[in-house]
Structure formats: structure tokens, C-alpha cells
């Protein structure tokens, strides 16, 4: 029996997703600068477009389930962000929402399942593996950490995922990009963290801040 004080109901889940959206939007310049270092500099404005779309969509038609709340965010990102980031982050939220169908609360196990399922879909869509200096290097360790922490409850699972994703971001500094627009930089990509991985860590950090204060 999950500890009900350590779960999020539908309204709280929507509020968390809105908090996440605003947090990422606030970090647009940080993402732009990270992408300018090894990409073309559009990652910040792309993520901002996606999460602005997510806020609009959640306000226009309040989601009627936890599954739909996550799916609404994913659909907005896929439609408004565009580019590789739109396809990847959109897929993460859309695919990750599916196994939560019929659930009235988001608990540690549900959160871990969201990340597991989303990660699996992103790996398939992107055709990349860990170690290629992409957002996978943040989301994969986060999903493993969430699974390990799932039994300890939602707050623990999210905190563990956020910490693991931050370590993942740092690890991308030592990786050489072998996919995406940074690929042709080769060794020149060393020393710079991957912008997509940073976005993963920002999303999870915002979830952690929200649940810590909830």
C-alpha cells in the first residue's frame, strides 16, 4: 500500500508539469549557450516553444487523467519544439504516459515506469545508445535510479532520478559526440555537456523541487 502522502493526484500532477514547464522556460538562455558551444544554438528556444505549448494546452483543456496530463505535455513538445528535440522529448512524455492509463495517483513505481517506458521508446526512435553524448546519457541513469528508489516512494524516486541525471550531464563532458549535429565536431565536443542532457536534468530537478515542497 503506497504512502498516500507521498503520491500526486491528478491536480498535483498537472501543477507539477506546469512548474516543470515554467522552470525550463526560465532556463532558455542557459540551454541556448550550451547548444551554441557544440550545436547550432536553437535548443533553448525550441524547448521554450514546447513547454509554452504545454502550458497553453493544459490551460485550454485541463487533462482528465494523469496519463493525459503527461501525454498533453508530450504532444505539445512534439508539435511545437520541432527538430530532433521535439521528436525525442515528445516521445519521452507520450510513450511514458501510456502505462499510467487508469491510475489515479502518481507514486514512485508509476514515476519509474514512466521513465522506463519513455526511455525505451526514445532509444528506439533515436537509434542511439548510451555514451554517444545525447539526452540518453541523462535519462537512462535517471530511469535506473528511479527504479531503484521506487519502493521508497515518489519523492525519493524523483530525487534519485534528478541526481543521477545531473551526474549524467557531467559525464557527457567526457564523451565525444557520434550522432546529431555535434557529431562532426569529434574531439572538439569534449569538455562541453550535451544540451539535451541538460534539459533532462532541468525537468527532473524541477520535479524534485516541486515534490519536495508539496
Amino acid at each position: 500500500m503506497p504512502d498516500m502522502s507521498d503520491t500526486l493526484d491528478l491536480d498535483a500532477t498537472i501543477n507539477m508539469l506546469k512548474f516543470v514547464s515554467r522552470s525550463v522556460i526560465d532556463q532558455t538562455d542557459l540551454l541556448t549557450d550550451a547548444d551554441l558551444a557544440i550545436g547550432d544554438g536553437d535548443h533553448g528556444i525550441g524547448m521554450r516553444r514546447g513547454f509554452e505549448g504545454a502550458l497553453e494546452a493544459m490551460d485550454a483543456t485541463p487533462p482528465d487523467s494523469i496519463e493525459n496530463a503527461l501525454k498533453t505535455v508530450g504532444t505539445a513538445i512534439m508539435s511545437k519544439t520541432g527538430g530532433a528535440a521535439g521528436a525525442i522529448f515528445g516521445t519521452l512524455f507520450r510513450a511514458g504516459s501510456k502505462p499510467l492509463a487508469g491510475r489515479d495517483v502518481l507514486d514512485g513505481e508509476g514515476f519509474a515506469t514512466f521513465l522506463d517506458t519513455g526511455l525505451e521508446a526514445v532509444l528506439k526512435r533515436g537509434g542511439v545508445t548510451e555514451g554517444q553524448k545525447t539526452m540518453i546519457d541523462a535519462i537512462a541513469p535517471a530511469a535506473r535510479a528511479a527504479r531503484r528508489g521506487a519502493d521508497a516512494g515518489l519523492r525519493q524516486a524523483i530525487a534519485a532520478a534528478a541526481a543521477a541525471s545531473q551526474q549524467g550531464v557531467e559525464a557527457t563532458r567526457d564523451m565525444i559526440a557520434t550522432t546529431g549535429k555535434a557529431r562532426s565536431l569529434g574531439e572538439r565536443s569534449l569538455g562541453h555537456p550535451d544540451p539535451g542532457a541538460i534539459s533532462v536534468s532541468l525537468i527532473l530537478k524541477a520535479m524534485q523541487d516541486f515534490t519536495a515542497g508539496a
Partner: protein
Amino acid sequence: MANPKKVLNDPKQVVAEMIDGLVLANDGRVRKLPNHAAIVRTDLPDSKVALLIGGGSGHEPLFHGFVGRNMGDGAACGQVFAAPSPDIIYEAAKVVHRGKGILFLYGNYAGDNMNFDIAAEMLEDDGIDVRTVRVTDDVAAAPPERTHDRRGIAGDIYMIKIAGGAASELDTLDEVERVARKAVANVRSIGVAVAAGSIPETGKLTFELADDEIEIGMGAHGEAGVSRQKMKSADAIADELMEKVLSDLPFRAGDEVALMINNLGATTMMEMLIVNRRIRQILDSQGIKVHRSDVGTWLTVQEMAGFSVTLMRLDDELKRYLDMPAESLGYSRM
């Protein structure tokens, strides 16, 4: 460094306002879909294989400027330097479909590949046959054994021209796909960057290049090339680019080619013609015949300075589709 000057209104609205202007400049030959950033022909025949092109905006006239008779039937437009989303591609595809299937033709970038693939899966669920040909002409992006890792650059334009002609004349998606695959196997390009361009919304240059430096092989979004060097003469740059392009296919004496020299944005026509002079000397000396030349501006990277050289080896079939009349904002041929 000060941000580059651009003639803009709201930087967030550049794509929407550009599309409005593009439609008007087509004098009725194309229209925009009501709720999506996509351009489609207004004079589409009732029955034909459909050609859908697309990619990130900011490279005008590529891609959306190449919609018209014997060119693309529609184009899905992304934000600046970002692939269009699956819903834009899907809606454009549904509108241009004329019962004979759709060829997706676009540059080989991770974002475009994923978004077009998602749209293709959605269309297949609707029972519509979709084939995909990705343009992989940039020899600087990966070695010859990894052409699937190569980016699409100005080879896009000849590919659209040929696939557009084939999609008008040939009756089946199989045949149109076959011609497009033959064309992409025979096209090679390389670029050189002399100065950086910037993204309108951030106002920031996409890469840094010193005043006395050039980068051979730089991609269309400032992706790193094969070597950064001190500025040198037009002939010396042309020699190096041609060595890399010619040796890659390789092009041989007796080949007939189409030659495109494409301005990345801010290079003058005078410089392009000076480069063309040297390139023709090289081709003549190697016994390679130029069937046709295109020197102009088709794939830009905002105010990036520099140019790319594209060669396509031709046979009678490719010549036929390359030489067909075509009408579009960015490329017309009578």
C-alpha cells in the same frame, strides 16, 4: 560582439511571417495550410505520385521555395534550423496525396529523420504508401563508407528537381523512388564557410570564425568541417574543394555532370563566378563534361558567407528530369 543586423519584426514570428510573404510571392501557385506551417501547390493534378519535401526554415529558398510544377508538391516547414514536427508533415502529406503514394525527400539530419519517420508511420496507419529518400551529398560529413552519416546540403536542389520531374511523369511510387535513389547515389557536395550566420530569435552567431580564417566542409548549421585554415585565394579554395568532391564518387574522365555553385548567403555573385571559372578549368583538365551549370543562391544559412560546390553525375534519365521545365519561387527553368 554586437548581434548581426536583421530586418525583422517579432523574432518569434519570423517563420510565420516568412511563409506569408513566400505564398504572396508565388502569385497564387501555392497556398499555406490553414493551421500548419506547410506550403502546397494550388494546381495539383488529380492523379500523380506526390513529392513532399521539407526541413528547418532559415535556409530560404530551400525547401518551401521549391514547391511548384515539376518540383515539390508540398513542403513542411520547421522553425529556424529545426525539423518540422510530425503533425505538420502529416497534414501536408494528406493534402498533397493523390492516390499514388508519397515520396518524402529531405536532408539527412537526426531531427528530420525522426519527425518524417513518425509522420510516415501515421500515414501508413491510414493506408497511404510512403517512401523516403534522404539526401546525403556532403562529403565532408563522413567518409565514403558511411554515406548514411552524411548531411544533405545543396544536393537537395538537384534532388528536388529530378524527383519533381520524375513524380510528374512516372506513374508509380516505385519508379519515382528508383530515380531518386539513383540521383542521390550520384551527387556529391562540399562547402566552405568564410563567416558565420545567426539565428534570428537568439541573435547569436552559430559559430565563431576569426577574421582571417575559413572552414572547409562546414555544414549548413555551422557543424564542424574537415579543416580550419587561414584565408586563401579563390583558386586555392576551389582546388581543395574540387579535390575532395571529385575523388569521392569518384568522378572520372568522360563523365557528364551538372555543376551547382551555391551561395550560403552573404558571398557576392562576383566571387562565385570567380570560383566557377576555376572549377571549370579543373573539370576541363580532367575531361569531365559539364551538361549544365547553376551558379546562384538556393540553400542559405542566414548571413553566413561562403559557398558550396555540388556535382551530380548524369545519365540520360537523370538529364531528362533535370532539364524538364519547372516553376517555383526558388528555381525555375523554361
